[in-house]
Structure formats: structure tokens, C-alpha cells
């Protein structure tokens, strides 16, 4: 599991974005055009409906006005009728009174006169809007007033007993003609009102027709908008269903592609691990020989040296400087180099073995109290830190995670060991460990104030057998490679933030709960 997760994640990413781009292309054109058309059409339709509604409203108000005018005409006609009636009553009362001076006629006359005056005033008020009718009313008023005066005069004459005079008056004063004239006048006014009425009725009918027309237009428009909208929506829904289906198909493809690729990668990774294991294992075999026979050689060299000493004592002339140097200096030096080199090789092979074995170890997730775990590591290093005067602080609270205890311990103890190991000489060492939750992952930082790492080496320090900076500390360049392999194995990652002389911060990010990878 050394490098696979990186690659798997990456390939998931590229594959996903590629498929999404394809889906977007397919959906794009039809989708956007349809949406725009639907919105445009609906807006247009509703604007039309609004206009129709407003028109209908205006026509309605107009119609109401016209109905008002028609009613007005009827009102005027009613008053004219009443006026004429009162006039008849007035004349009848006078006639009766002239014939028989009964006070009842007098009462009727007074009542009719009062009603007449009232009706006159009403009519005058109602006809203010119409100049022609107004003039008619004025003339009528004048005639009526004259008539009233004449009639009144004849009535007074009768009451005084001047019967002859009254009768004379009745015949000669022209009141009868005048009354007739007034009646004709009323008739003319009525005719005028009837003309107005018929005109007003016509316009009213026209407005009603317009109103119905507008309503019909609105109805047709509504029907059109509804039909068009439904058609467009149907089309849109169909397009949506099609894209959803193709999306689903693509998604299925994607998942299949991802799982195939994941399986391939896992297989390749397993192969690499097996390879690393076999190679390192088989490399140890010859190494055993090299070291074994080097020891044998040393033993033989020792025998030769002892023999040489005997010769030196017994036959010194047989020896020269070359033989002495070969036995005393060259052979031990050669053996020494062979030994240190093979030992180093053994360490490297062991490191590869350990990495490959770590990749195959079963992860057993459990709940981990990170603060306690870090304190445990700190305690185990207390002695060394006291020696060099370094201090380690653990910032609490630290998040709890569910992961493999051994792996997390190895990661953190490697990081803390490094922090303590690469301190800046002459600067009191400060190491801080803190943790937090970030977007569903636990982030744990190990920060030191040590010598730091040049940014160009940030990737390099995580590589196997690679180291950075001034080489004054023992080590094979294995620790951080191991840390990264473990972090990947736990589904996490590790990064480094640092600059020369400015300390280093190693940021470990782990899933809060370890999720086992499905086995291919």
C-alpha cells in the first residue's frame, strides 16, 4: 500500500472530471435553450394576461360610468314626469277652486305648488351637466313661475268673491295656453333625455362588447400560454429524463472504470510489494555469504599474520615491506570496508523489508485518545530531551480518532524523534504537538523550532533513503518514508511546511474513523 492511494485518488479525480465534462456537454445546449424559451414564453404570456386584465378593468370602470349616466337619464325622466304631474294637479286644483271655493282645493293647490318648486330645484340640479337641458329647465322654470303667479292671482280673486273676475282671468290670462306650453316643454325635455338615453345605451353596449372582446382575447391568450408552457415543460422534462439516464449510464461506467482501475492499481501495488519482499529477502542470502566468508577471511588473515610473526622472528630476511603492508594494513582495511558496506546494505534491505511488511500488516482500528498517545511517546523520550534541554508541549484538547494504534504511534514517534533530532544547535528546542478537526478529518501537527528544511527538499525528505540538509546525524533516510507509507495506509497523508532555520511543521491528516479499503 505504499503509493497506491495517491494514484487511485488521482485517477478517480481525473476520470470523474472527464466524465462530468462529457455530461455537461450533452446537457448544455438543449437544456439551456429550453429553459430560456420556457422562461421567455411564460413571461410573455403573463405580460399579455396582465395587459388583458388591465384592459378589462379599464373597460369595466368605463362601463360602470356609462351605466351611471343611463341611470342619470332615467332619473331626469322621472323628475320631468313628476313635474308634469304636479303641474296637472296644480291646474286641476285651480279649476276646482274656481268652480267651487272648497278649501280642500286650496290645500291641494298649495301642496302641488310646493312639490312643483321642489321638483324644479331637483331637475335644475340634475341637468347641470347638459347645457341644452339646462336652458330648457330655465325656460320651464320661468313659465312655471308665471303660471303659478297667474293661477295664484285667479285663486285669490275667487277667495275674495270676485268670481266674475276670476272666471274672466281664467279665460283671458292665457294660463291655460301657458300650462299647455309648459307641458309641451316637459315633453321636449323628455324627448331630449330619450335621445341621450338611446345614445348612452349604444355606447354602453359598445363598451360591454369591448369588454367581452377583451375577455375572449385574454382567454385565448391564457389557453395559448398554458398549452405552450405545458408543451415546453413536457419537452424539458423529457430532455431532463434523457440526460438523467445518460448521466446514470455514465456514472455506472465511471464506477466500473474506477473499480477496474483500482483493482489494477492494487494488483500492481501488491506485485511491487511482493517484489520488494522477495528481492530484499533473496538479497540477504548472498549477504550472509559475503559477511560469513569475510569473517573466514579475517580468521585466515589472522593465521597468516601469526605465521608472519614467526617468520619475522626466525627468518627475518624473507620479509619485505610489501608483504608486511599487505598483511598488516591492506587486508584489514579491505575487510573493514567490505564489512561496513555489507552492514549498511543489510540495514537498507531491512528497511525495505519493514516497509513491505508494514504494507501487509492487518490494520486493527480502535478508539485512540491522541493526547494520551502523544504524552506516552513524549514520556518515552523524556530522558533524551532532558539531555539536550528540549521541551515538548501537547496542546489539548486533541481530537479522538479511530485508527490503528501501532501505526499512529509509529508515525508520531518518528515525527517527534525527528523534531528532537534536528534541532538548531544553540537554540533551546521547543516541540509542539497539536490537533484539530478539519472538514471531517483529524489534522495533527508536530512543530519544532529547529534547523528547518529547504522548501526544495520538502518532497525529497519523504523518499526512501533520501535525506536533506547537513548530514551530522546518523540515519538511513527511512523514517519519513515509513511515516508517509503508514499515513497512506491509514487513508491519510502528510505534508511539510518549513524553511531553512525557521523550524518545521509536519502536518498529518487522518480520517477520523479508519475505513478499510474493499479488497480487490
Amino acid at each position, binding site marked *: 500500500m505504499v503509493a497506491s492511494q495517491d494514484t487511485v485518488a488521482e485517477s478517480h479525480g481525473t476520470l470523474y472530471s472527464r466524465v462530468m465534462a462529457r455530461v455537461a456537454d450533452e446537457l448544455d445546449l438543449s437544456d439551456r435553450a429550453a429553459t430560456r424559451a420556457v422562461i421567455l414564453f411564460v413571461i410573455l404570456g403573463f405580460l399579455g394576461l396582465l395587459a388583458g386584465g388591465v384592459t378589462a378593468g379599464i373597460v369595466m370602470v368605463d362601463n360602470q360610468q356609462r351605466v351611471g349616466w343611463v341611470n342619470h337619464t332615467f332619473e331626469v325622466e322621472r323628475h320631468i314626469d313628476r313635474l308634469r304631474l304636479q303641474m296637472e294637479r296644480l291646474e286641476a286644483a285651480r279649476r276646482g277652486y274656481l268652480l267651487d271655493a272648497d278649501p280642500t282645493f286650496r290645500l291641494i293647490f298649495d301642496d302641488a305648488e310646493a312639490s312643483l318648486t321642489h321638483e324644479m330645484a331637483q331637475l335644475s340640479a340634475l341637468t347641470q351637466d347638459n347645457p341644452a337641458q339646462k336652458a330648457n329647465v330655465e325656460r320651464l322654470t320661468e313659465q312655471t313661475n308665471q303660471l303659478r303667479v297667474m293661477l295664484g292671482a285667479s285663486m285669490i280673486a275667487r277667495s275674495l268673491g270676485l268670481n266674475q273676475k276670476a272666471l274672466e282671468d281664467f279665460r283671458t290670462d292665457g294660463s291655460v295656453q301657458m300650462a299647455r306650453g309648459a307641458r309641451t316643454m316637459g315633453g321636449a325635455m323628455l324627448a331630449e333625455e330619450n335621445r341621450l338615453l338611446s345614445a348612452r345605451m349604444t355606447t354602453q353596449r359598445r363598451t360591454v362588447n369591448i369588454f367581452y372582446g377583451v375577455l375572449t382575447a385574454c382567454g385565448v391568450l391564457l389557453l395559448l400560454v398554458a398549452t405552450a408552457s405545458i408543451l415546453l415543460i413536457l419537452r424539458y422534462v423529457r430532455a431532463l429524463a434523457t440526460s438523467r439516464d445518460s448521466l446514470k449510464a455514465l456514472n455506472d461506467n465511471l464506477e466500473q472504470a474506477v473499480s477496474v482501475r483500482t483493482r489494477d492499481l492494487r494488483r500492481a501495488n501488491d506485485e511491487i510489494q511482493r517484489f520488494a519482499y522477495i528481492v530484499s529477502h533473496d538479497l540477504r542470502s548472498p549477504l550472509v555469504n559475503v559477511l*560469513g566468508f569475510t569473517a573466514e577471511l579475517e580468521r585466515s588473515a589472522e593465521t597468516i599474520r601469526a605465521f608472519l610473526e614467526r617468520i619475522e622472528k626466525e627468518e627475518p630476511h624473507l620479509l619485505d615491506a610489501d608483504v608486511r603492508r599487505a598483511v598488516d594494513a591492506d587486508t584489514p582495511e579491505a575487510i573493514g570496508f567490505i564489512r561496513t558496506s555489507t552492514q549498511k546494505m543489510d540495514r537498507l534491505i531491512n528497511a525495505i523489508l519493514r516497509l513491505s511488511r508494514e504494507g501487509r500488516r492487518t490494520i486493527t482500528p480502535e478508539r485512540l485518545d491522541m493526547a494520551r498517545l502523544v504524552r506516552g511517546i513524549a514520556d518515552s523520550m523524556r530522558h533524551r530531551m532532558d539531555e539536550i534541554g528540549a521541551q515538548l508541549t501537547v496542546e489539548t484538547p486533541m481530537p479522538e480518532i479511530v485508527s490503528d494504534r501501532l501505526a499512529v504511534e509509529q508515525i508520531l514517534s518518528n515525527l517527534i524523534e525527528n523534531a528532537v533530532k534536528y534541532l538548531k544547535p544553540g537554540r533551546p528546542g521547543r516541540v509542539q504537538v497539536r490537533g484539530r478537526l478539519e472538514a471531517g478529518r483529524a489534522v495533527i501537527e508536530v512543530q519544532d523550532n529547529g534547523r528547518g528544511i529547504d522548501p526544495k527538499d520538502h518532497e525529497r525528505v519523504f523518499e526512501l533513503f533520501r535525506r536533506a540538509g547537513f548530514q551530522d546525524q546518523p540515519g538511513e533516510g527511512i523514517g519519513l518514508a515509513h511515516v508517509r507509507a503508514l499515513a497512506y495506509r491509514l487513508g491519510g497523508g502528510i505534508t511539510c511546511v518549513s524553511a531553512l532555520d525557521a523550524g518545521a511543521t509536519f502536518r498529518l491528516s487522518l480520517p477520523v474513523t479508519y475505513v478499510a479499503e474493499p479488497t480487490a
Partner: protein
Amino acid sequence: MNGHQPVNIIMVEDDEGHARLIERNIRRAGISNTVHHLSDGSSALRFLFEHPEGPVKNGPALVLLDLNLPDMSGTEILARIKSDPALRRTPVVVLTTTDDKVEIQRCYDLGCNVYITKPVNYENFADAIRQLGLFLSVIQIPESEGLG
């Protein structure tokens, strides 16, 4: 036959160098028993079960077994030895470069008596081989070995 019959050492080891180093250290430890060297699995099985000088036909033996053989795994030979009534009690010392815990466990489960990792640190290796001398002195003749 009897308790004084010398113990044969059967070494199954494909690496000539390792075989040579093992034998030298055995000799250096003062063990003079016969060492039969076999360099692959099938000849080892043949020797163990059929050879006139093999342990089935010819007395007690100690098996030094390497796990990485060219034709089969050493564990297969170990299983065969430990499941055979005549060889069941023959001590087997597994010698290998692997220090894999799973494999060590498997060897003990199969009945291996001692497991020795061939250390690259030669002195340890030599020591381990020399201690076989002590081991040889306590080997008993298999009881089923009635006739000899």
C-alpha cells in the same frame, strides 16, 4: 539398534556458501558427526525416506532445514517429516534468512524444534550453529526404530 549410534546431520541448504559456513562452524564447535548435504527439496525427501543412510533406514538424525529451496518450500519437507511415524521425533532446526513472525509461527506449528534466523551478523550465526552441539547430545533414538 542402540543409544550409542552416532547421529547423522542432514543439511538441506541450496546455497553452497551457507552450507559451507554451517559445516565449518559445526566442525569448529567440535562436532564430528557425519553431515549429509542436500541442495534441493526432492533429493532431500529422497534421502530422508529412501536412502540406505537416511534416517528411516539408518538410525537417528538431526535435520538442518533451509526454507527457501529452489523446487519447494522447506515447510513442505518439515510437514512431511513431522507427519511420518518413523521420522516424527527427528529434531528439525529451521535455518533461514526470514525473520517473518508469521513464517516462524507456522514452522513451530508444524513441529519444528528450533528456528534460527541466519543473521548477517556473522558472530551470532556462528554462535547459533555452535549451540547445535549441545542439542546433539540430547537427541534420542526414535522409539519406533526397532530393528535398525
